[in-house]
């Protein structure tokens, strides 16, 4: 069915029902956006003893952990941190207008393209002065993640977590499975699990982002880190034969994914790993949050996504990193520098990790003795990586990933044979979006 929108001249003012349509469309169409910028930050104080922080840590556990960090900072420096917490998703959705309005001095944000974007737009302040002090606490991969495109530092990382394939040790033991290190072994293991009546790979893509994690893993294993970065940055073409190869690998293991995934949330998919119905699950280490029973949690383990192309091995780890940025015109610059210097220390990270054990410290200097075995393994995996990626929606333009890639990957999952036309459609839309910046 095709509806032509042309050929309808709109006569002058009319009655209410017409206006309702017009008004509704207008409100949807972003008339509210400039107005929204007025609802940013709370801090109007230029008190030298206070720093304001815009926080997206609305969940109880991280919120408490941050409060403890700020309390420790106050004890050490005498500067009070005034936290303005917003719902996690709302914070993310309003970030554009928030940063343009009257943002707090410091705000929670993510490393990668999403950070660089705001740095480029002039909505964040460079913090090279802070890094002169804290630089020694971080490995090179973290330093690379904290820089903008102009080479200046804009970000202080706090914690990170890896994406990997999670499994139950007891299930692997019972069936005598071995952790697969190569693609062929991985596919063979999937086949064996299916034979043994297990769902080989738990999967839920209702929220549309989990599929992006699977694509990332396959793509940088097949094509390497450099190509992955170019692809995410919009430089390499999606119609490249290399991308096709990545999708072909995906299509090969697709039959081993849990069915009904389009209507399943990641939490429900994780439950099938908890109940030992599924053998493996590719997700971030936050999957551990679904393991509420201590014995189940102790049984949880993970391995890096198997090698596909020996040229790249398992050298890349997807490790989304969360931390802090400084808004464009902080009211208390000296206080901000002090706070960020503190947040860049292993002590601050340890306070956070005490409360939230599903992540690991971004600094290599942090004390790992209190880590759970899972955290220790995650820490080793991240610090041993040659390159770190963030996640598709953090490494690429958010408008591209949310409006093109999310529906695109869902389409692939439902019809893996249509990959050629899908990729050329993605490429066309990518060009339009990346050209419009």
């Amino acid at each position, binding site marked *: 069915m095709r509806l032509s929108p042309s050929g309808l001249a709109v006569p002058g003012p009319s*009655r209410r029902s017409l206006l309702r*349509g017009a008004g509704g469309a207008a409100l949807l*169409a972003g008339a509210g956006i400039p107005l929204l910028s007025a609802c940013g930050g709370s801090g109007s104080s230029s008190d030298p003893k206070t720093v304001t922080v815009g926080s997206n840590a609305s969940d109880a556990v991280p919120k408490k952990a941050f409060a403890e960090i700020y309390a420790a900072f106050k004890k050490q420096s005498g500067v009070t941190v005034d936290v303005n917490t917003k719902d996690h998703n709302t914070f993310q959705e309003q970030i*554009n207008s928030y940063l343009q309005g009257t943002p707090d001095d410091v705000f929670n944000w993510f490393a990668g393209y999403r950070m660089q974007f705001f740095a480029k737009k002039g909505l964040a302040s460079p913090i090279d002065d802070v890094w002169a002090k804290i630089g020694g606490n971080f490995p090179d991969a973290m330093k690379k993640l904290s820089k903008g495109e102009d080479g200046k530092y804009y970000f202080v990382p706090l914690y990170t977590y890896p994406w990997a394939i999670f499994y139950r040790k007891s299930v692997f033991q019972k069936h005598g499975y071995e952790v697969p290190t190569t693609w062929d072994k991985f596919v063979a293991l999937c086949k064996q699990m299916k034979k043994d009546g297990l769902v080989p790979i738990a999967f839920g893509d*209702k929220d549309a982002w989990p599929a992006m994690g699977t694509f990332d893993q396959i793509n940088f294993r097949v094509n390497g880190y450099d190509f992955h970065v170019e692809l995410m940055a919009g430089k390499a073409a999606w119609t490249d034969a290399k991308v096709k190869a990545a999708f072909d690998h995906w299509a090969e293991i697709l039959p081993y994914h849990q069915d*009904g995934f389009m209507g399943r949330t990641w939490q429900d998919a994780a439950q099938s790993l908890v109940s030992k119905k599924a053998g493996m699950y590719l997700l971030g280490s936050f999957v551990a949050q679904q393991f509420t029973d201590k014995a189940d949690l102790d049984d949880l383990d993970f391995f890096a996504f198997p090698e596909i192309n020996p040229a790249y091995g398992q050298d890349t780890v997807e490790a989304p990193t969360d931390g802090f940025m400084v808004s464009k015109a902080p009211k208390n610059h000296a206080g901000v520098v002090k706070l960020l210097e503190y947040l860049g220390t292993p002590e601050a990270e340890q306070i956070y990790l005490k409360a939230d054990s599903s992540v690991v410290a971004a600094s290599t200097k942090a004390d790992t003795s209190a880590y759970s075995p899972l955290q220790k393994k995650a820490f080793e995996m991240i610090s041993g990586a040659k390159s770190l990626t963030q996640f598709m929606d953090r490494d690429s333009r958010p408008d591209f990933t949310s409006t093109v890639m999310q529906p695109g990957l869902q*389409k692939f999952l439902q019809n893996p044979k249509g990959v050629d036309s899908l990729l050329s459609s993605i490429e066309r839309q990518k060009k339009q979006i990346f050209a*419009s910046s």
Partner: protein
Amino acid sequence: MTTDTTTKSPEAAAVPPPGAAPQKKRVTQGHRRLLTRRDRITLAAMAGVPTLLHVALVWVTAIASILLAFTTWDGIGFDSIKWVGLDNFHQLFSDNPQFWPAVQHNVIWFVVLILIPTPFGLFLAVQLDKKIRFTRLYQTAFFLPVVISMACIGFVWQLVYNPDTGLINSIIGANKPGHYIDWIGDPKLNLWAVLIAASWRHAGYMMILYLAGLKSVDPSLREASALDGANEWQTFKNVIFPTLRPTNTVVLVVTIIEALRAFDLVFVFNKGAQGTELLSILVTNNIIGESSRIGYGSAIAVVLLVISLAVIIPYLIATFRKERRA
């Protein structure tokens, strides 16, 4: 000016309310005598405030979004707005794989609502109008879904349709590997699954509208047709239904509006994934959040606006013509 002495406050003539000056000459003396200063202030406030609000919130925003549809803008600073002419529309019509399915789904939404829940609502209304026992109870039961917010309805139905733990799959045993029925995700099924939820609500809404219409039907009409020997169906078809004409018009307009503004239910249900794309959801996905393709999203909103106008203008023209004739 001396004629103003009849008003309670003579200084009104000396200091006319601002803005009234240009019309001074045209206003007849008789009119002026009727309006005291207080009246005029009240009138100005009553007409002016709503007009201002209306212009600011409806016209300015509508025109702004139409203009933005011809630009690209990431929402950061007004200087980053770039004029691109018809590019957004061109991309939308030729390269956006979600656009035409979305238009199609909005149309299906309307057709289904008008063909299934609307006649069913009429049927319920006719039955309840017969003063059967517990009629109030039935009315409440059928109307209840209309009172619940769409977001809650989406949430409830999403639990019913959940592939692993949902009511339907649990009952029919479709939650085992190999037998999954993915009501929420399968693009061949999910639109119909959502439409069942939408119809469930819409039927109650239509029932109340028709019930109100039926209550206003003159009982003597029924009596007359009974005397003429018409059976129940004939009475309904030839006498009652034609008198429901005004209600039918309202029902039609309400259903069209429901079909065009369909959003909340689907957004909660599966965020408009493949199979349930809707224009309103495309607008939101492009504008809200970090994506901020404001120009592109506005272009989709303009398409939605044009479709609304295409439906509503002929209706308004017809109504006005009738009023003028009457």
